[in-house]
């Protein structure tokens, strides 16, 4: 009896798996043109000019521009007519894009893209569940819940690094005052106290992986050489050597619930190791004096050397990186050495690698999650089913 039940369960699982996975990697049905793709984003973009981008709208604006323009120049500027062109723009509210008929790589499948801006993650999730939108980026930590609620979830490779970056140039162990740079021992003690696995498993709900280095395993192949295990005993020993014991102020983006949860967890881990850490929400553009802060960085290239250099460029504005630049034709060993040098200074403490998670409606077909440095490939997706009917259904 139990054997029969097990066999039945296996069959049901296979069928469900095929049915659910088929639209994403669809090859069985022929793509069709037409329809409007409904997209929701969190940022409220006020201008599409990349030169006027700010921290809040930077990522979203880049994605929209990657749909409008064809390619990027050497300096990173967008250029050339892309697969879509702007037909309507309401600052901070809505962007309407229409398919460019004579796009050099071929007309996109969908006729138009309607982007609604300023939708919070919760609203985006709800709209995905209610089929009011076709595409939305959702927080990684919400991926599991979204899937449990019937949302199609697509994940990129983990290419977002959440790291702890100590501000200033450090030096010495005398850091009793707020905002003063923490010394090497203090930085190491704090790095050793952090339980990265707990962050991944509980906060990120297993979306992502612990980070020991500045490059993910899938990119560099050397990430496993960096330890991600917590060592609170050693951390406690190191901290005990620091007299007087400093109080570390850990800053996080006050508008980012994930960063807040991670920062508070770091404070708990540090507390267990006897380290005084106060988590404090700060504005990303603000100049609040903190000892260290959480930084989210997205890989801009699949190439380890390029991605590392890019990270170093980003980090150099926040902390002191004292390693020589990579040679022009850097070998994997060169990349590893430089990565090791940066990590060993404990000025940058990699915490977790997170994927980008997207929610898709059931009618979106041929969606492939973008890689590092790539925009949303919405020109390649097509909408299944009665396009207008689906749209009407969504409006209801």
């Amino acid at each position: 009896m139990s054997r029969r039940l097990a066999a039945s369960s296996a069959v049901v699982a296979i069928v469900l798996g095929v049915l659910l996975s088929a639209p994403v990697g669809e090859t069985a049905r022929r793509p069709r043109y037409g329809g409007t793709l409904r997209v929701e984003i969190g940022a409220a973009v006020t201008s599409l000019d990349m030169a006027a981008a700010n921290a809040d709208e930077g990522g979203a604006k880049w994605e929209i521009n990657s749909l409008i323009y064809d390619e990027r120049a050497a300096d990173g500027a967008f250029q050339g007519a892309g697969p879509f062109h702007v037909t309507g723009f309401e600052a901070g509210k809505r962007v309407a894009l229409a398919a460019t008929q004579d796009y050099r790589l071929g007309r996109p499948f969908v006729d138009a893209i309607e982007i609604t801006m300023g939708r919070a993650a919760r609203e985006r999730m709800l709209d995905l569940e209610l089929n009011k939108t076709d595409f939305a980026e959702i927080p990684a930590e919400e991926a599991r819940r979204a899937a449990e609620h019937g949302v199609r979830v697509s994940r990129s490779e983990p290419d977002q690094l959440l790291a702890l970056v100590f501000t200033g140039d450090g030096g010495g162990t005398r850091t009793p005052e707020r905002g003063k740079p923490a010394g090497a021992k203090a930085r190491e003690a704090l790095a050793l106290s952090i339980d990265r696995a707990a962050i991944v498993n509980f906060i990120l709900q297993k979306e992502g992986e612990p980070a020991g280095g500045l490059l993910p395993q899938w990119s560099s192949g050397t990430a496993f050489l960096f330890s991600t295990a917590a060592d609170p005993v050693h951390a406690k020993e190191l901290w005990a050597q620091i007299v007087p014991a400093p109080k570390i102020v850990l800053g996080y983006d006050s508008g980012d619930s994930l960063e807040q949860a991670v920062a508070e967890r770091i404070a708990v881990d540090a507390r267990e190791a006897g380290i005084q850490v106060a988590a404090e929400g700060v504005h990303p553009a603000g100049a609040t004096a903190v000892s260290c802060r959480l930084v989210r960085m997205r890989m801009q290239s699949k190439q380890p050397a390029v991605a590392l250099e890019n990270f170093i460029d980003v980090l150099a504005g926040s902390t002191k990186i004292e390693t020589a630049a990579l040679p022009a034709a850097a070998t994997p060993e060169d990349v590893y050495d430089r990565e090791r040098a940066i990590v060993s200074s404990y000025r940058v403490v990699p915490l977790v690698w997170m994927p980008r998670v997207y929610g898709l409606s059931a009618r979106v077909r041929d969606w492939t999650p973008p890689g590092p440095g790539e925009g949303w490939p919405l020109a390649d997706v097509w909408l299944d089913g009665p396009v207008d009917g689906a749209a009407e259904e969504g409006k209801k």
Partner: protein
Amino acid sequence: MTFRTKLFWMFTLALVVSVGLVAAAVTEVTRRSFEEMNRQHTDALVAQFQREVAQRSDDVVHRVQGIADAEGTVRMAIDLSRPKGDVSVYVNDAVGVAKAHQLDFLDFISNDGSIISSAEWPARFGYKIDWVLQPEDWVSRGSFLMKADMQEGPALALMSVARVRVGDKDLYIVGGERLGREFLASLVLPTGMRALLYRNLDPSFQAANLIDSTGPASQAEQFGPIVEKEQQQPGEQIAKINWTADAASAEVFHAIALLGRQKELLGILLIGSSQHDVVTLQRQIALLSVGVVAIGLLLGALLGWWGAARVTRPVRQLVEGAKEVAGGNWNARVNVRGKNEIGQLAKAFNQMTEQLVEQRERLLQAERVAAWREVARRLAHELKNPLFPLQTTVENLQRAKEQSFGQFEEVFHESTGILLAEIENLKNIVSRFSEFSKMPHPELGSVQVNEIVRGVVKLFEAQFGAVGRPPITPELHLDEHLPLIEADAALLHRALENLVLNAMDAMPSGGVLMLRTSPAESGVHLEVSDTGTGLTSEECERLFTPYYTTKQHGTGLGLAIVQSVVSDHGGRIWVESEAGVGTSFHIELPKHPPRRSVSFPISFDYEKEKEKEPEPEKHKQEA
């Protein structure tokens, strides 16, 4: 101070003491009543607090048990009881459930004590809470106080534990409410009372741990002593805090220990009772008491004065009567009626004065008879001596005429000479008596006694060193700052002459005559001393008696004259004598003699002087 004044003050004092005692008693009774009322209020508040805690405890237990019984929790327990149960799915559940059940604290804890989800500190997942695994019947335990860890620091909480058992695995639900200012704000307190909570989170007193219903307590440092006392000896303590110098600002605080599961001190509830009303009422009572005392004193003083006057009136009459008697009016009588002690005293006084008058009359009569007898004796004695030569001379004349007529002429002349001499003697005797009887009244004037002394000594200078008799050396010790007195200089001169003559007679073998003057309390003191043979006590006793003399040819009037002069000047005279050493006469004269001289009876306190002077031969006589 008069008897009436004394009586008045006694009345007043008695009244003050009585009123004061009554006022103190009223104040004390009032104070105790208020303290008792305060205590009852505090007891009521403590009882209310305990009821509130008990009610909250039941509420917390029910809510936590409700969470444990909820379907979601049971599903969680079932899920986690599986071999590969994923706890990460539930990491955020506690926040929502706690909010739904209005709990400040809620932790889902796995079978091994690890926190699955925490509402009060979401980032604390994965860490263990060991105490929940201790073998204890959490159902019967109900709720309890405990120090709960929170992100912003430890807090005092009323907690309860529920357990969901699936198979051999337990899921613990630990939930509770924070005991903080919201809890204090929920207590209904009478006017003038307030409650504070000290969270005993540190080994020593920390002002920041003391809160009231609005937040951190102001002037929390003032509570340090009572909190530290409670920390050392948990129980119920009472302390008074004076916020300002004004006693009305004071508050009495009752500290009640809040104990945890292991009877450890977790918190201290401080119930304060303002002393403003008590102090205000006490002040009003005190003010009223002062008013009552003042009015009472005034009335008491008036009544006391009237009463004292009424009581002392007969006494005053007696005093006046006694003064009149003392002033010589022996006919004074006191008119006091009544049968009480005062009346009896007045009656006895009147009887006494009547008896005194009668006795004085009898004494005067006896003295008069004795004086006449003495005068007769002295006259007989004085007259007998010249009469005998007169008789023999006349008899000689008769015999000479009868027997030898030729010698008659010679005898006649001799006898008539003797007769004339004796008759002259008789005339002198009569003259002296006459002179004594005619002692003039003093004519007062300003007198320097030293001048009189020097004059008398000069008068007798020739006789002190007369040829044929042993010399007498006069020694003068005169105080140059002697005050002037009102006296009759001639009479004083005469009295001093008598004393000097007396002294010279007392020193037939010569000696030293010492005259000393000195200021006295009331006037002037004069001393005349000789180094003669001295006097016996019997002689001293009779020395100032008129016509008494120890000399062969004295009249006994010299010292009587001296005593009379001194008495007329309102002074006094006494004699001190020691056999073989000498005699001293002392005279004290007032600056201003009384208008009417008073005759003092001569007395001699021989026994008293004997006690003073142990020598048997030393005598003193005062006139």
